[in-house]
């Protein structure tokens, strides 16, 4: 790995207003916990003129919960999120996903905002500068072709954040602040299927919080990874089970298999024939994903695993 950090100026605002001003400067980039961005800076994957450090902004660190819902500040650390009893009681998928991000020392500083905005990942991208240079770079950064799908015209890097699907099954909205004020967007609409342009965040904008309505039912999160204790999801799945008047309805969201986290279309409710239902659920998940050769683990294995995890988790929630 390259020893050289690029030269940049670090801005350390203490209020949101100061942060918005700092972000309006040319080539400014947000740094929160830095557990992903600092790695990328070392690899030459970014060269910001200014880094805007959010860690001193106390307004981003609040977690409020009431009967009308829950608001989690973008600066809340994953260690705090994973140990919050209210979140565990209402949104277990979020607790489980937070506790499975990276390792315990990362989670001490890693934030919700950094996790949701986490850059997409690929075998050909998360490499040192000399490695990428000797491969003529790639479509996502400094190059012209995607080595995963050379005939295609878009980057296939995989979105690999754990928290997005867990928040999506609970209908989370994002609160975003920028030069034009505050706006809200459904988390599911925040992402797009393009590894090089995966989130709807305009220059100068930042995520301030995730807002959750009261839960509709119990939920959970499962993932597979190469290193059991510390690793990005090869595939991850969140499921929420809602009791409706027609029967149990499942909401399923996936990560690690596409360039953005995705929701699975599951119109049916649990029928009298659970075996057939869960076999269909398994098939629906297999159909929804399109894992690519972005990791050392075969796409087909990731497809089968995520479908099996989804069906097993849904069964556990019945």
């Amino acid at each position: 790995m390259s020893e050289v950090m690029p030269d940049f100026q670090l801005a350390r605002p203490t209020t949101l207003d100061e942060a918005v001003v700092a972000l309006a400067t040319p080539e400014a980039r947000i740094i929160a916990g830095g557990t992903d961005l600092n790695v990328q800076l070392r690899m030459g994957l970014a060269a910001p003129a200014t880094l805007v450090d959010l860690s001193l902004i106390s307004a981003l660190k609040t977690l409020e919960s009431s009967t009308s819902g829950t608001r989690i500040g973008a600066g809340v650390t994953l260690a705090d999120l994973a140990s919050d009893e209210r979140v565990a009681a209402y949104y277990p998928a979020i607790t489980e996903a937070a506790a499975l991000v990276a390792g315990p020392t990362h989670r001490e500083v890693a934030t919700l905002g950094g996790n949701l905005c986490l850059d997409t990942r690929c075998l050909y991208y998360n490499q040192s500068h000399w490695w990428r240079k000797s491969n003529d770079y790639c479509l996502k950064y400094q190059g012209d072709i995607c080595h995963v799908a050379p005939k295609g015209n878009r980057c296939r890097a995989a979105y690999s954040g754990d928290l997005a699907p867990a928040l999506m099954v609970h209908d989370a909205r994002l609160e975003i602040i920028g030069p034009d004020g505050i706006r809200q967007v459904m988390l599911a609409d925040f992402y797009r299927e393009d590894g090089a342009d995966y989130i709807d965040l305009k220059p100068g904008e930042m995520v301030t919080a995730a807002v959750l309505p009261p839960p509709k039912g119990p939920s959970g999160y499962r993932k597979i990874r190469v290193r059991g204790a510390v690793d990005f999801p090869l595939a991850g799945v969140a499921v929420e089970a809602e009791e409706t008047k027609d029967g149990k309805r499942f909401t399923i969201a996936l990560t690690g298999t596409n360039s953005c986290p995705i929701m699975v279309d599951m119109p049916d409710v649990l029928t009298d024939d659970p075996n057939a239902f869960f076999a269909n659920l398994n098939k629906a998940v297999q159909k929804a994903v399109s894992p690519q050769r972005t990791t050392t683990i075969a796409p087909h294995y990731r497809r089968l695993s995520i479908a099996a995890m989804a069906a097993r988790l849904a069964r556990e929630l019945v």
Partner: protein
Amino acid sequence: MKRIVNLNVNGRQVEDVVADSLLLVDYLRDRQGLTGAKKGCDGGECGACTVLVDGRPRLACITLAASVDGAKIETIEGQAKNGRLSALQRAFHENLGTQCGFCTPGMIMAAEGLLKSNSDPTEDQIKTALGGNLCRCTGYVKIIRSVQLAARATAEATQ
């Protein structure tokens, strides 16, 4: 860009000029001569660079020195007091919790972070807390045992 930072390093107050892009691990190793924190992977994957920042474990290789301005930094060099090893250092030494020693400073600092918040951890809690620290020698069993024995020794000493 450069700035002045004030840090408390192993109990000593220091004021220093650092580049905004300087990493904490480079500051500690190159500027303070504290080479206990190791660069194992240099990318947040191995835990060899673990130090305590305000009492909590932190990966110094992916932390900007300027971002911990005002903090209290503890490294392996500050663990022995008046020539006496800390409970964890002694336990690692006596129970083969350390072999080649490369992972040891990080292991001990991560374990120190755990014991500061939980003086009587279960085996699972120890495994979770040290989950981000790689060791290529010991096979981890003796490390976990060392942490358990250090916790017990501290409890007995304070009884």
